[in-house]
């Protein structure tokens, strides 16, 4: 009766559904990194001098730094000279003005990914910026947003049309010297999204950016900057995919969020970069710095992430709570299967008085994957009445995977209240059998158990993305049990 298919250990068998390559002619710079390449990128984008200078300062600093190796991940050294730092589809030397000018092959690519860019086909209420390799190829709903005073465009466009805003805010949350990958990104970043929501405006729709790596041997270094002025509200979602390739590809993004008085930013990520195959060949190295600053009083920043892809994830979306009564949240589901490794978590830095933060991190490991939660809760001396609540739960599927928790807590104000709860559980044969004995298939039973485990995080996602995230989870763990 004990057939092999019933065996919890015969987990694993994942299909990546976004692994196709778009055959499109690209303008790709030769591999290698030096000041000429940086000048080339800056020239290609027609950037003002301040930005080129800023890039070069970052690059010179990067040269003095060493790769961080404290994360619980293991991978061969990255050869930064073998990566191409710029790749753009050749058609339309200048950014297309409207969707009708976008290369049909690109539109097709996004259709295949389930992100139709034609506005009429798009779910009402979501504007999309589509970034393909190093450039943004289209941004939808721009006009409607402009009417509300919201600026939503590619980073390159922002540099041209709103250089004062870029100069004022760029690098103020994640300075170029912050860490190795942030410095690299500052030197070579190519595109990304820019959002500015002016004072008192509630952004009339969800904003989203869809990142796609297509070209081989390139890295993607996008930069996103979101500013919510006094009393502004915005909800933003980011999605990512890449073709299946045997080589590892580097993705080193920087995201900066700024919330002024009474502003709120909700940032959600569904990350589905190619994770590599069952044996750990290929996949994206996802080394990302994301940080939000609650600069204003009563401001609020919330990070929600569903991480299912990438061979290696190194990512700690954080909140710096400067304003009094400001609050930060971090909700995370990190799924690792096969040979994937994830070291992810958050930092909550309490500076202002009566600042609040909450962290809910759910890690799921299957196959031979290793998943770590790494978090810092820091209460600065002036953070009178600060509060933090942290909950980390790990779910293990099968005997060969691992889950680790590295919570760091620094409390320098005696009045602070910091709570931490952590659990580790194994998907039980008992749970599985119980559901199957009720007529539910093994696959559905696993999905049910995993969804239940992630519920506290999924309910934070915008509705349509919650469904997408749930489906993605099901795909990532396909064949993981039974």
């Amino acid at each position, binding site marked *: *009766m004990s*057939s092999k298919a019933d065996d919890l250990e015969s987990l694993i068998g994942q299909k990546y559904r976004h692994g196709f390559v778009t055959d499109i002619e690209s303008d790709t710079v030769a591999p290698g990194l030096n000041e000429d390449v940086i000048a080339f990128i800056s020239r290609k984008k027609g950037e003002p001098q301040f930005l080129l200078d800023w890039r070069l300062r970052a690059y010179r600093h990067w040269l003095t730094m060493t790769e961080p190796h404290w994360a619980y991940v293991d991978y061969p050294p990255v050869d930064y000279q073998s990566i191409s730092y710029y790749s753009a589809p050749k058609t339309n030397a200048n950014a297309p003005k409207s969707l009708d000018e976008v290369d049909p092959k690109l539109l097709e690519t996004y259709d295949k990914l389930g992100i139709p860019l034609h506005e009429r086909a798009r779910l009402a209420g979501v504007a999309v910026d589509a970034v393909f390799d190093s450039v943004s190829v289209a941004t939808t709903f721009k006009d409607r947003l402009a009417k509300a005073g919201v600026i939503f465009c590619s980073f390159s466009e922002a540099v041209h049309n709103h250089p004062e805003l870029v100069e004022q805010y760029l690098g103020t949350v994640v300075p170029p010297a912050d860490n190795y990958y942030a410095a690299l990104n500052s030197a070579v970043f190519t595109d990304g999204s820019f959002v500015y929501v002016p004072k008192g405006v509630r952004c009339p729709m969800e904003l989203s950016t869809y990142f796609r790596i297509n070209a081989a041997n390139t890295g993607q270094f996008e930069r996103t900057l979101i500013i919510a002025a006094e009393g502004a509200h915005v909800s933003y979602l980011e999605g990512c995919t890449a073709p299946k390739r045997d080589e590892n590809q580097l993705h080193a993004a920087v995201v900066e969020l700024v919330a002024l008085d009474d502003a709120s930013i909700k940032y959600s990520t569904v990350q589905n970069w190619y994770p590599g195959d069952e044996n750990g060949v290929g996949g994206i190295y996802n080394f990302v710095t994301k940080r939000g600053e609650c600069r204003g009083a009563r401001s609020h920043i919330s990070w929600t992430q569903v991480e299912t892809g990438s061979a290696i994830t190194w990512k700690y979306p954080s909140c710096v709570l400067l304003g009094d009564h400001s609050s930060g949240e971090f909700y995370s589901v990190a799924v690792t299967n096969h040979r994937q490794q994830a070291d992810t978590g958050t930092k909550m830095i309490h500076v202002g008085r009566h600042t609040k933060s909450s962290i809910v991190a759910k890690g799921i490991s299957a196959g031979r994957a290793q998943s770590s939660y790494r978090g810092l809760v820091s209460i600065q001396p002036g953070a009178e009445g600060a509060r933090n609540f942290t909950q980390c739960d790990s779910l293990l599927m099968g005997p060969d995977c691992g889950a680790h928790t590295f919570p760091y807590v620094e409390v320098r104000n005696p009045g602070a209240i910091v709570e931490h709860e952590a659990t580790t559980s194994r998907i039980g044969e008992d749970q599985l059998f119980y559901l199957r004995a009720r007529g539910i*298939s093994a696959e559905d039973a696993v999905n*049910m158990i995993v969804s239940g485990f992630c519920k*506290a995080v999924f309910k934070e996602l915008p509705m349509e993305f919650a469904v997408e995230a749930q489906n993605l989870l099901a795909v990532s763990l396909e064949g993981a049990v039974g």
Partner: protein
Amino acid sequence: MTSHAEAPSTAPLLEIRDLHARIKDRAVLKGLNLTIGRGEVHAIMGPNGSGKSTLSQIIAGRPEYEVTRGTVRFEGEDLLPLAPEERARRGFFLGFQYPVEIPGVNNVYLLKAALNAKRKSHGLAELDAFDFLTLVKDKMRVMRMDESFLSRAVNEGFSGGEKKRNEILQMLTLEPTLAVLDETDSGLDIDALKIVADGVNTLRAPDRSIVLVTHYQRLLEHITPDFVHVLANGRIIKSGDRTLALELERRGYDWVLEEAAA
């Protein structure tokens, strides 16, 4: 009352022949025979560790057990190659001795998924939310369960009594042809026992059979069995009518064990 015309009426509902099974290297069933006809209520009693729960789990298809010899036929068909979910969809139900907690999954979600999985396999349309709720609320009244229960996570934070009532609610919702209730009476106070027994009794029907696996005769005061079996050392060693249960209550199991050894 409609009967399953396509089912071979001559075959008993469940027929177990010479069943041997083991878990890891330990033999747990050693030549067990048991036949259950339609509309019958059987009680399986026996000392601790005799294999009662094992038998229930094996019939339900628990993967960890390996059947080494013998047959189990359900409505004339070989049950052993079927996955647990397939057995459930064909009309088998196991009421768990220790119902399992599934955090974050609502009761209503599980019940609906279970019922619709069964309906789908029988070529029936899935019930929509309204019809389903009407049905399940009806059953909840029988089990005297509060509606707030539907939005609670499966068995999480339930008292022992609530868990057992939940098992019976699932059974009433799924309307199985054969229900094996594994120590459903353990851990119940007298009021809860009565509610559970009432629930089980509403399911009794000429084409439906129930097996009560129990230590004690007190459940049998509320659900009268047609047959009582003693399971010991991996086999049925004695069968009788309900007076056997009363005798076991009075005299314990030793005399049956001695009789069997003789």
